[in-house]
């Protein structure tokens, strides 16, 4: 008997009691494989019992017994005694030798003893907190850091040679909108974009010339004084306002008190006074215009128009007559404008654009938060040193760069949030006092 029976008939394997071949029961996973499994089990048993029967030679299985054995009757007792089933089972030994359980030393080692640890796949607390941060979206830079290996600006754009196949439409690439090329919104009052790094003037030198330093010191102190004065004025104004409010509140209170004192209102309607009764004059309703009136209006309008036209024509004629004069006037104006420009250039120091100096900011801020104040970058006179070693640098470059980005409109100002927003807590009293019984 073969261990694994092939399909006995030509049809496909069938499920148990397959009523139809359309439902889920017809799926492959429901195919009945008990036969196969049975066969495999049989095979295993056979192997354990000493080898697959089918593969054995017929000599091993059968012997031709031609002569009778005379000793049998002597060897076997008369009444064959049947042993216990349990004994039989225990006595049955597998033909396959058992796997030896002896521990052996491995052939090669690196000489380092393995660290004894219960679990090797553990995650440290530090790593866990990092993972939590990553899950919150606070991963550090994801941009891959690589050395440049090619010239970015030499790479020529590939010429499309896709004329071969006209069947497929050419892929359409998104066009860059013109608005992408527009300069960012500058926060300066004049609308010009500030230079990324402004040229320093002599006053910023670590060892400045006296005139430069004095000019800058005077300017900065004037600014500081102005700011302080403004602050004091604001304080004073606030105080005055508060006082006035208090006074008016007091007056109102007093008036109320007085009103409460009087028993009834003086001018009541009961005594024959009524407000707003006399000035209710009847208003005249607009009447419909007659055709006559309409015609008259039309005529008048036409006349006015004509007159206006005539006046304009006259003015034009007059102007035409004095064209030469006008031309001169225009040229003079031009000259004047040039003069103004020159003066302005002189006033601004001709090329002070791009130098560090007074920035006039525009009134409207961009975004929700205010632009941070500029640091005061000034060495005080008593700290002024002419040795580079003794120089104490002023200002903070980080803040300076950040502010420069904001002023140039590259990003909008943000507020630093030192803490996360905490959940609001409400304090209530436990209602145990209701349980209190006397």
């Amino acid at each position, binding site marked *: 008997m073969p261990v694994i029976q092939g399909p006995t008939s030509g049809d496909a394997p069938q499920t148990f009691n397959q009523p139809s071949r359309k439902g889920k029961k017809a799926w492959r996973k429901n195919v009945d494989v008990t036969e196969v499994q049975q066969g495999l089990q049989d095979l295993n048993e056979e192997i354990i019992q000493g080898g697959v029967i089918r593969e054995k030679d017929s000599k091993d299985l059968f012997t031709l017994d031609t002569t009778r054995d005379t000793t049998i009757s002597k060897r076997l007792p008369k009444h064959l005694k049947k042993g216990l089933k349990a004994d039989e089972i225990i006595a049955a030994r597998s033909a396959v030798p058992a796997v030896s359980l002896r521990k052996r030393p491995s052939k090669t080692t690196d000489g380092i003893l393995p660290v004894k640890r219960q679990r090797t796949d553990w995650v440290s607390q530090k790593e866990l907190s990092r*993972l939590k941060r990553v899950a919150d979206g606070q991963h550090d830079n994801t941009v891959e850091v690589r050395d440049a290996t090619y*010239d970015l600006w030499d790479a020529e754009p590939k010429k499309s040679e896709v004329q071969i196949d006209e069947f497929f439409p050419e892929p359409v690439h998104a066009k860059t909108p013109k608005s992408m090329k527009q300069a960012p919104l500058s926060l300066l009052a004049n609308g010009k974009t500030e230079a990324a790094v402004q040229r*320093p*003037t002599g006053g910023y030198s670590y*060892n400045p010339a006296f005139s430069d330093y004095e000019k800058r010191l005077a300017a900065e102190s004037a600014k500081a004084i102005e700011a302080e004065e403004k602050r004091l004025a604001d304080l004073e104004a606030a105080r005055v306002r508060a006082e006035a409010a208090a006074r008016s509140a007091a007056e109102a209170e007093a008036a109320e008190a007085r009103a409460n004192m009087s028993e009834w209102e003086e001018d009541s309607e009961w005594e024959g006074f009524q407000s707003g009764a006399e000035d209710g004059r009847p208003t005249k309703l607009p009447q419909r215009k007659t055709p006559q009136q309409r015609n008259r209006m039309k005529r008048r309008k036409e006349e006015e128009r004509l007159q206006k036209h005539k006046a304009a024509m006259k003015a034009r004629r007059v102007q035409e007559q004095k064209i030469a004069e006008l031309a001169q*006037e225009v040229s003079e104006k031009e000259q004047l404008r040039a003069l103004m420009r020159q003066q302005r250039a002189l006033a601004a*120091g001709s*090329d002070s654009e791009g130098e560090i100096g007074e920035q006039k900011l525009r009134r409207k801020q961009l975004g929700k938060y205010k632009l941070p104040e500029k640091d005061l970058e000034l060495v005080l006179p008593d700290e002024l040193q002419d040795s580079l070693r003794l120089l104490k640098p002023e200002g903070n470059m980080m803040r300076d760069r*950040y502010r420069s980005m904001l002023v140039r409109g590259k990003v909008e100002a943000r507020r630093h949030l030192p803490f996360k927003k905490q959940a609001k807590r409400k304090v209530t009293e436990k209602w145990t006092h209701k349980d209190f019984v006397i």
Partner: protein
Amino acid sequence: MPRIKKKGQAGAAKNYVTRNQAIRKLQISLPDFRKLCIWKGIYPREPRSKKKVSKSATSSTTFYYAKDIQYLLHEPLLQKFRDQKALEKKISKALGRGDVGDAARLEKNAARPEKTGKPRYTLDHVIKERYPTFIDALRDLDDCLSMLFLFANLPSTSSVPAKMIDRCSRLCLEFQHYLISSRSLTKSFLSIKGIYYQANIKGVDVLWLVPYKFNQRVVGDVDFRIMGTFVEFYMTLLGFVNFKLYTSLGLKYPPKFDQVMDENAAELGAFTLEGLTIAGTENGKQIESSTHKPDPKVQAEVDKVLKQIGNGEANDGEDTTAQDEAAEEEKAAGELDKFEVAAKGGDVLPQPEASDSSKRSLFANTTFFLSRETPRQPLELLLKAFGCKRVGWDAVLGDGAYTTNELDPSITHQIVDRPSTQAAAEASEDAEDNQTSQKLAANRRVPGRVYVQPQWVWDSVNDGEVREPHLYAPGTSLPPHLSPFVKSVNGAYDPTMPLEGQEPELEKLQAGSDDEEGEEDELAEDMDVAGSDDEDEEGEDAFGGFSADEDEEEEEDGDASEDDRQAELEAELAGGAVNSKSGDKKTKAKEDARKALAKKSREEAEDLERAKGMLSKKKRKLFEQMQYTNNKKSAEDEKLRAKRRKLEKEKQRKAKA
């Protein structure tokens, strides 16, 4: 009746979107949106009328152009952001379930692109898009360099990872190496904020600010996420710019980097530049294998440069070839054109500066030693960028010095910033003993060496010529350090220029008439100018490396000037009669000139008055105000000039006496 239009359906309302709308459209988080906007160069905009655009009442809404946001939808980075978001979700899910191991595995796989096949992204395409040409990139280099130099000098914190700082400093050092080998640094300025540098790269002036070492405090009110995003972008940009600059010089990029030297604070010394020839075959292959093929023209040029380098090596050292090349360049360039002002009173045109090799190799043939109290990094860069080959410093300042032995006989200049150093009196006896020992006693000098304060280097570089070292000797009060970035205004007082060059005519005339001596003084002045020239030359000689104490030097100066004075007096005696004859004529001519000038100024004033009459009241006010401030300024300048004139005259008198 026309059809009623709904609000927010057409016009300005369609052109703008608010930030929240944009985020919803792109389906990314707010931080990611911020990043994307910074990288792609999309800035907040302001509609002309906010009321027409926004549906909400808040005035602080941020708007963007709708088309910009629409265009962002095509950005490949967006997909990466979304992938990242998906990963975050997976991780948070695993963490929520308590499968920490799973979360760690997910994260690790994402960070290991070679295993998972999901590469992290680069910003190469964004840079190409933002800066279509190399010149565009150079124009934006100001910001880039300032940021990277700043971050390179920051202490590492949780918000600024050490990796980023390392990368920044490496890129900056590579860039500095380019500056040194191309000699493109032009100016530098020591300010109270930091050190300004200006370089001329391919005709574009690049200005950047480098903070002083160990000074940067990390402040709380700066958003480091935003700054970090900018830095990531700029790091990629500077990498490509460096590549381009290096290849244009025929150098291999990236240069060889020595880790051990870097750990010993060698900074610039940790890099070794290699010509493309050394690794030519390898590099060629690499370039070919990459998808971007080099421009054939550029390749040809590079080949030419390589050939030249090869020839040079065959002939002699590098120095000779460099000099030859410089000489050839000069020959080819010939004389530069001079732009002159077309109309009188027009703008002063910037003159093309002769890129002469003398200015660029200001410190050639010198050996510097930096004492341990001087700032090494900026001095090293400046000296090397202006031709100095050998810069040594105290071992405290780090590795990579030419020599750390203060007594090295080849040292010609030493930069010190100590209060004062005494000359070694018994120099000749002690010299041999000292050479056996490494260090000098405090405040002792080595004879035969020029001692200067650090400012000398900066002032020399900005002037384009070596300044007299005795003005900058240790212990002396230094001359003021002027900003080289201030362009002198027409008519303003400039302390660096001689008085004759800058005073207007009227002032000159007045000055002439003020002093009673008349021509005699003028004559003396002329002579003195000549004398001072002589002194300058002597100073330069001294710089050339002769060994003498300063007193001696001064004595020599005195001798020379005495000789001059003698000659002066003789000339005066000889030409006295002739001068007195011509005196009347001269005074008359002066009188005439003054009259002419007065007439001219009167006419100008009249013209101005007439012109002012035509202005509107508002404009006239403005005009008058401007005139007032200008007058004030010029009065100040005049005062300063008068002061200087007085000083100079006093000096002359003293010299005469």
